[in-house]
């Protein structure tokens, strides 16, 4: 049976926890708004780039590029986009569950975010590189990752590359998804940015495009750029997911702490009342014995 003092102490410690989780919830919700806006702002660019690529794809049938080369061979690279910090609900464990499905021997991992790198090290997978990205992902950070995997691919160290990340669907729903990155395969298949289901269907205009300076040069510059941008958009989506998930997790933690405080306070009051009744009883019994 805990004493009233024990319960008071517990109430105090739960209150402190609630205060911290509440503060984290506030921080996450303000960051979430920014991250969501950034993720949404990138979508028109992605849509336009997709339509440009779809339009020119029809005209550049015989165009080839090292990044489009399809190779037989099982060597596989996964870009794992996780978070740097924990306390964001099941986000990272959902991601790593997907990551475990890849074959241990033929897959190498490229990580963005510390949690993913820790997971790869703990499970003794092959880690090729670890990148960081900030709360507001920069295009340069995305370019670094993209350049690294493009080099791995063109050097023939891996035969295919895909990205595993958490797609931001809404504040309450984030889904781990994997998206193939390389080889590009057909030009038509290039998707700059993230498919969202409700994206408008691409229409090809059926026009014959001219290229200036030349098709090779323009597309040679356009393809790596499209990949860079795809990774950038993925980082934005991952960041929005992280902040949303953290906000929801912290909100739950705060609610639970509040409920706990309520229960403990009730218990404390009951115990206090029981003590008073007991003392009263003792006093009256003593008086009756004397009288």
């Amino acid at each position, binding site marked *: 049976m805990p004493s009233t003092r024990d319960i008071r102490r517990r109430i105090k410690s739960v209150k402190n926890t609630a205060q911290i989780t509440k503060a984290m919830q506030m921080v996450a919700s303000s960051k979430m708004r920014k991250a969501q806006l950034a993720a949404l702002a990138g979508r028109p*660019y992605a849509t336009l780039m997709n339509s440009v690529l779809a339009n020119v794809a029809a005209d550049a049938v015989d165009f080839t590029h090292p990044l489009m080369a399809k190779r037989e061979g099982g060597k596989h690279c996964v870009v794992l986009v996780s978070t740097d910090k924990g306390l964001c609900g099941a986000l990272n464990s959902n991601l790593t569950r997907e990551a475990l499905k890849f074959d241990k021997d033929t897959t190498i991992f490229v990580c963005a975010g510390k949690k993913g790198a820790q997971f790869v090290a703990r499970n003794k997978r092959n880690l090729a590189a670890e990148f960081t990205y900030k709360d507001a992902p920069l295009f340069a950070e995305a370019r670094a990752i993209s350049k690294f995997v493009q080099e791995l691919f063109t050097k023939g160290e891996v035969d295919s590359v895909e990205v595993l990340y958490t797609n931001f669907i809404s504040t309450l729903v984030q889904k781990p998804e994997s998206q193939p990155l390389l080889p590009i395969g057909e030009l038509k298949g290039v998707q700059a940015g993230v498919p969202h289901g409700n994206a408008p269907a691409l229409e090809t*205009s059926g026009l014959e495009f001219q290229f200036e300076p030349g098709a090779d040069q323009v597309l040679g510059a356009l393809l790596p750029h499209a990949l860079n941008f795809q990774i950038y958009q993925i980082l934005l989506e991952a960041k929005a997911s992280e902040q949303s998930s953290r906000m929801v997790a912290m909100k739950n933690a705060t609610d639970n702490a509040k409920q706990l405080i309520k229960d403990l306070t009730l218990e404390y009051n009951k115990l206090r009342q029981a003590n008073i009744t007991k003392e009263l009883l003792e006093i009256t019994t003593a008086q009756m014995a004397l009288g």
Partner: protein
Amino acid sequence: MATLKLEIVTPDAKVYSEDVDMVTLPGVEGEMGIFPMHVPLLTQLAAGEVAVRKGGQESFLAVGDGFVEITGESVSILTDMAIKAENIDEAKAEEARKRAEARLAEHLDDEEVAAVNASLAHSLAQLKVKRRSSK
């Protein structure tokens, strides 16, 4: 009279989306003037100045590197920077230019040189547009 639908989009936002009469833009192989009914063309964009003519009035934007897709009815510009002339802060751009030039004087690796060159081109483009519109 036929018009062109001009769209300028950066990774951060859709900067411009209007029907215009004519667009002059800096291609990698020199300035290009685009009128409606232009042949479909895909080209690379150099950092510089985009001039837009609409209803007899000209307005200017500073843009960074990127790509342009031209069809008979529309011009779509994908670039990493686009700022309207009235939003350019000349002092800031000038400062950025100086900073970039100072950085170039230091010893840098290729990747950094490319990044600094890009930001230098951005500030130069902004300055060019700003000085023209304030004349």
